[in-house]
């Protein structure tokens, strides 16, 4: 004979769909978070993402969004489960089951569900991450640095998320069994949410809050730094909060009131009213989907923005080959290079070279006070700069410029306006050998991409006489040679470029084994003040000639050459880990979006079966029923999809614009690539929406358009 446990087992079997839904939701949440964190904490990725760098912060920010999204999703799945359980629990209680009996059974079930699904998700998360990463290596790019390794500490974060999922399920379970009003428990399943009035101003005010939050959140750290001369603390991100509130208000307005003024309110009355009576659930889900879509696009835009922008910059270089070296190095000569080229069948044209002097510049530098605050300090020897004479500049660039005595010009890239770059900051130059100084002032900006490819190495042009005066008796170690040349059929010269790249490294001494941000003048100043120069102590400044194939070396070597064919061909492999990390993040976020949307749509089918039966009895045609289902399913995917996409695209444009108060042509090309990504991802979401619509129609016994058309044709 059956006992209470067996009765529960029989009910579980009958209602396995509800159990499966909860198990799957928990499993997917933990799986995605574990996969994400496995990659995020992987030494492969951490080695590439500098600590405190923007890329790491961005990846962490999206991770936080994913955690919030998946957490909210698990909670939603649990609430659906308890909603389903309420009827049977209410009946048990009505027939005299004690709270103890119900607790025992319920908690036994919850233990099995939560521990089983979370453990499976946590165990399979890392293999999933590994599989996706290997797929990237197989299909997109494979470099030495792409070899994936995992940090066991990642499992701590995955375990913490699993624990949250389990604990929240048990807390909800405890609250569920604590209720005493049996009639409320029995009726829970068919209870509608009380509708809270959504005023007509919700939508417009929501839009204002979104704009204010987006703009305010972005600007707040800059404002904080300016106002308080201190680094912006983490809490400054609270200024983004109005964005979330605004988003919620806009979604509420969209779901409950709609935007169409004067539209026939009876047209979509069923779909709208059904969504309205589940307003909170619907909007909560939509908010999570919107935020995740925005996060997914933020990550997805990284690769096209980076690669297409860089490709354009490489294409726009005025010469095919350029490199620079310290003149105290035993570097390849012009004849060595021409010989190497001829052996490779490469014809060199337009050879140009010129000396540049590394001089000390005065200026103010930011000094960290150690308590989150900073101040600016003037130094006579603040940093180094590459100075070139006016005639050599004209020779190298083909331009014809004239610099007045006592003045200097700064060389910027074609895209940089330089309105606030360096004017007025330098007033004194120092010969680092003789300590002789020269007072100068800013004259103008010049544009030449080959002398403005780095954020750390700046070129300046001096009047010929001034250059000769200040560079007099300068030792070779403070001189650099800049070499530029073109080749015929540049894209056919990859082998030559590779060999030249290796030879340049082989001819460079250990004193040149430094990153681009290593400043020799800064080091002299620091050492002079009895301090250690950070570049000598920080692990960030360590690079090694043996890692010449690594992206870190290629990106940061102070004397990295600029070879069009090499840079173009190796672009993806140079940035492989960066690019693939963000593609991975995007894939995870999109996967979460699709799963959450799908689950939400299935619950529409599960909860509204009776409504559709009633509508059928009231004479609704298959077309009417189909339109009503479509009206709801399309909103679940469409509204968050539209808002999330628009929000992130506008936010991206804003970031790019406020970087230098303009959108450069390479940024415009990047944005165009982002639009292609949007089209691609929207197509995927649309395809998934169609599959979901078909599934939901099937569950509600509503015929799809295809079935209706087939029937009509047969008729």
């Amino acid at each position, binding site marked *: *004979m*059956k006992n*209470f446990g067996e009765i529960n087992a029989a009910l579980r079997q009958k*209602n396995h769909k509800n159990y499966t839904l909860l198990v799957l939701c928990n499993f997917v949440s933990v799986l995605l978070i574990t996969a994400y964190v496995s990659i995020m904490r992987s030494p492969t990725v951490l080695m590439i993402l500098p600590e405190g760098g923007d890329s790491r912060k961005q990846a962490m920010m999206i991770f936080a969004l994913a955690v919030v999204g998946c957490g909210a999703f698990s909670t939603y799945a649990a609430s659906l489960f308890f909603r389903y359980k309420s009827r049977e629990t209410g009946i048990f209680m009505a*027939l005299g089951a004690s709270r103890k*009996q119900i607790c025992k059974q319920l908690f036994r079930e919850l233990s099995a569900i939560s521990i089983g699904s979370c453990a499976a998700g946590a165990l399979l998360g890392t293999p999933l991450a590994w599989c996706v990463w290997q797929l990237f290596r197989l299909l997109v790019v494979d470099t030495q640095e792409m070899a994936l390794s995992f940090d066991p500490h990642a499992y701590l974060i995955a375990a913490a998320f699993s624990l949250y999922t389990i604990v929240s399920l048990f807390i909800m379970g405890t609250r569920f069994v604590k209720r005493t009003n*049996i009639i409320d428990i029995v009726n829970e399943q068919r209870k509608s949410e009380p509708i809270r009035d959504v005023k007509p101003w919700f939508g417009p005010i929501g839009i204002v809050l979104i704009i204010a939050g987006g703009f305010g959140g972005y600007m707040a750290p800059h404002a904080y730094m300016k106002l308080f001369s201190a680094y912006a603390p983490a809490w400054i991100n609270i200024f983004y909060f109005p964005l979330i509130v605004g988003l919620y208000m806009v979604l509420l307005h969209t779901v409950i009131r709609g935007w169409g003024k004067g539209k026939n309110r009876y047209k979509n009355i069923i779909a709208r009213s059904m969504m309205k009576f589940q307003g909170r659930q619907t909007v909560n889900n939509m908010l999570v989907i919107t935020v995740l879509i925005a996060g997914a696009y933020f990550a997805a835009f990284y690769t096209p923005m980076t690669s297409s922008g860089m490709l354009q910059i490489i294409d726009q270089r005025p010469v095919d080959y350029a490199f620079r070296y310290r003149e105290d190095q035993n570097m390849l000569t012009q004849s060595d290079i021409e010989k190497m080229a001829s052996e490779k069948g490469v014809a060199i044209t337009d050879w140009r070279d010129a000396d540049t002097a590394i001089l000390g510049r005065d200026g103010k530098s930011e000094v960290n006070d150690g308590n989150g605050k900073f101040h600016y300090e003037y130094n006579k020897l603040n940093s180094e700069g590459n100075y070139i004479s006016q005639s050599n500049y004209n020779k190298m660039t083909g331009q014809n410029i004239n610099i007045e005595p006592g003045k200097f010009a700064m060389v910027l890239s074609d895209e940089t306006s330089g309105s606030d770059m360096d004017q007025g900051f330098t007033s004194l130059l120092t010969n680092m050998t003789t300590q002789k100084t020269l007072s100068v002032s800013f004259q103008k900006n010049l544009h030449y991409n080959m002398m403005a490819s780095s954020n750390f190495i700046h070129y300046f042009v001096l009047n010929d006489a001034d250059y000769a005066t200040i560079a007099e008796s300068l030792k070779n170690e403070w001189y650099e040679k800049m070499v530029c040349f073109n080749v015929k059929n540049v894209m056919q010269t990859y082998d030559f470029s590779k060999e030249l790249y290796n030879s340049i490294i082989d001819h460079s001494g250990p004193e040149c084994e430094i990153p681009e941000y290593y400043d020799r003048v800064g080091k002299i100043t620091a050492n002079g003040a009895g301090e250690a120069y950070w570049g000598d102590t920080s692990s960030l400044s360590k690079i090694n000639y043996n890692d010449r194939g690594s992206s870190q070396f290629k990106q940061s070597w102070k004397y990295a050459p600029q070879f069009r064919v090499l840079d173009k061909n190796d672009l993806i492999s140079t940035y492989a880990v960066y690019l693939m990390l963000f593609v991975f993040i995007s894939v995870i976020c999109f996967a979460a979006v699709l799963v959450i949307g799908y689950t939400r749509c299935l619950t529409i089918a599960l909860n509204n079966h009776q409504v559709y039966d009633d509508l059928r009895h009231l004479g609704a045609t298959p077309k009417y029923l189909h339109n009503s289902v479509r009206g709801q399913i399309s909103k679940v995917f469409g509204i968050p999809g539209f808002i999330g996409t628009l929000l992130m695209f506008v936010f991206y444009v804003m970031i790019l614009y406020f970087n230098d108060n303009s959108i450069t042509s390479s940024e415009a090309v990047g944005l165009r690539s982002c639009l292609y990504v949007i089209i691609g991802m929207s197509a995927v979401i649309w395809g998934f929406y169609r599959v979901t619509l078909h599934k939901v129609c099937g569950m509600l016994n509503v015929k799809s358009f295809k079935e209706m058309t087939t029937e009509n044709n047969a008729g």
Partner: protein
Amino acid sequence: MLQVKDLHKSYKTGKTIYEVLKGVDLSVAQGEFVAVMGPSGSGKTTLLNCISCYIPFDGGQITLGGQELKDLTEDSLAKVRNKKLGFVFQDFMLLDGLSVLDNILLPRIIGGDTSKVMEQRGNELCEMFGISQIKNKYPAEISGGEKQRTAVARALINEPLMILADEPTGNLDSKSSRAVISSFEEARNKLSATIFMVTHDSFAASFCDRVIILKDGAVYCTLEKKRGEERGVFQDKLLSAIKEMSGELA
């Protein structure tokens, strides 16, 4: 058997408080078949839910078999519901995942009984209410009348002091309604069951020994069927009383 004294119950919706029961007094004797009638909103179902201990009440006293319900702990209340009360609901409240027989046995299983005797008792009840042939079917496979007879059998499985029925014929056609009422009569006659039924249906109520009519949360009047009085005559009396209460005879 059952005594209700000065029962008060109110609901709060937003800032508004609705007083649904305003001091109800009534009593039901052992073996009686009593109906409660009244217009919508008169407090019938609330009264039943309070007696069932499904919802807490604000004031007054409910005594069942000499036991005061208000002071009981959660566990004791569960025992009262399990052993002393049987329930029949308008929408049957059968569990779809269990067979008819399992549904009938459920109160006993909840009470910890898994004996053969229990199964035997379940089969007897199936027999009594004419549902033996469907005892292995699931609720989704049987008619509304059969579902309600299953619910009546379930209510009787623990031989409770009293059966509480909330609109048991509300979702049924006349034939099925008649069968359910017959089940109650049979339970009363063969098993000496006490039945307390809330209903809108004057036909169903006319089978009762006594009908209590509620109006605005208080007992408006009580009609008792005289010994030997015909059911039809009693139903006419009921209808007249209801008309009088709603002012139609004035």
